[in-house]
């Protein structure tokens, strides 16, 4: 269905190829290259996560029946507006979904931050994983 290596694999190997060049770079370009390496790592994790989004269905369920007909793109706008208006005050299930969604996105943009946060509160257990997608 598609050629290999895929986006994630290409990005990863390209990043590994760039990394040793850090030592050779004059110092005024080091910061730029570090940012490039970071951006490639985030992009690779994004690519691995893929486009499957089972969490969207879970969001609809957490928000109530009015949400079942709203299409994906409009969901965020509707959700934001309803939260601001107080329509979801006390909606614990939604609160848990939001936290799980933050953790999912953080897993892609900065997994080390997530490890640090979980380490900082040893009594805290990570929220239930609603993603169910198994991509890593």
């Amino acid at each position, binding site marked *: 269905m598609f050629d290999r290596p895929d986006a994630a694999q290409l990005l990863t190997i390209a990043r590994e190829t760039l990394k040793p060049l850090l030592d050779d770079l004059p110092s005024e370009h080091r910061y730029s290259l570090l*940012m490039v390496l970071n951006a490639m790592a985030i992009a690779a994790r994004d690519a691995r996560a893929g486009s499957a989004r089972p969490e969207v269905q879970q969001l609809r369920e957490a928000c109530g029946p009015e949400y079942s007909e709203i299409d994906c793109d409009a969901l965020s706008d509707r959700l*934001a507006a309803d*939260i601001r208006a107080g329509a979801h005050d006390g909606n614990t299930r939604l609160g848990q979904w939001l936290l799980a969604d933050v953790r999912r*996105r*953080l897993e892609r943009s900065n997994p080390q931050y997530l490890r640090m946060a979980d380490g900082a509160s040893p009594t805290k257990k990570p929220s239930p994983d609603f993603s169910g997608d198994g991509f890593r």
Partner: protein
Amino acid sequence: MGLIEPDIETALEDFVGARSGADAVLVHRIEPLPGGAIQENYAVDLTIQGGSFAGSRELVLRSDARSAVGASLSRAQEFAVLRRVHGTGAATPRVLWLCEDTSLLGRAFYLMERLPGTANARALVRTPWTDAQRRALVESLGGQLACIHSVRPPDPELTFLGEPPGSPALARVARYREYLDALGQARPVLEWALRWLEVHAPDSEEVVLCHCDFRTGNVLVSGGQVSGVLDWEFAGWSDPLEDLGWMCARSWRFGAWCFEAGGLGHRSDFYHGYERGRGVSIDALGVAYWEVMAAVRWAVIALQQSQRFLSRKEESLELALTGRMVPEMELDMLELIEAIDAGTVNV
């Protein structure tokens, strides 16, 4: 680049000469100072003969930069704030002369005394301070804030700050909602936190002069003590807990999370310095509220910065990456809200 042009030195010498009544002024050096994303700062060394300010002087020239941010004070307003705060005993630079005549250097500017020390956040956080040094340093940070917070509205020198808000917390919530609307990006997690802040806003708040960006990175440290408080462009009337919350927010610990006061020392020592300076005791849950606010504020700023990249105004990898930092602040705000609601927040 910037203001450095061949006849800048002459223009400055004439200006300083006129303002100080000097017989002669000689500029030895003008060099850009690091930092200052929104303003441009320069180190200026000069010698003044005669007049009210004779001697070898090490100054800072602070001017408008090309890209101004709407929410910040003008140089003239900043000058007035610094002059007012200097009288409280806070370690602010002594401001000398304001020039609003843009024909001199192309932009409004002012000159102030240069203070010793470093404000480099990463270097300060990575310094292997002893426990005693950390305690002294963050106590002095608390003491600085206490001085700043002694300025209360109304103040005849600070009329440009406008009417103090009845509820600083709700004023902030409204402002951040406006910013989000202007960005046109729906952010459910930020809306969740803002709604929580709205519902849990305190019934009554003290209103004082707040720095509104008091954190590691904006404070000069020399010899283990605060030698200067910098970057006053966001100063305004607000709840003093706002400054305390900003200083203790996880975002501003630069990775040293165990040192809750700006990555430099313990929260309790920071509080102690503040409480001793103001003769009040700190409402710890109130600070936690404003730490949630701090995470929201920084998330909104990050979104605004990434918007400059997304809207093609500025092709910058740094701005692009800033947009991907938002989940970090979102985690901070949600975890803190959960801890406050559960009664488990560290006080």
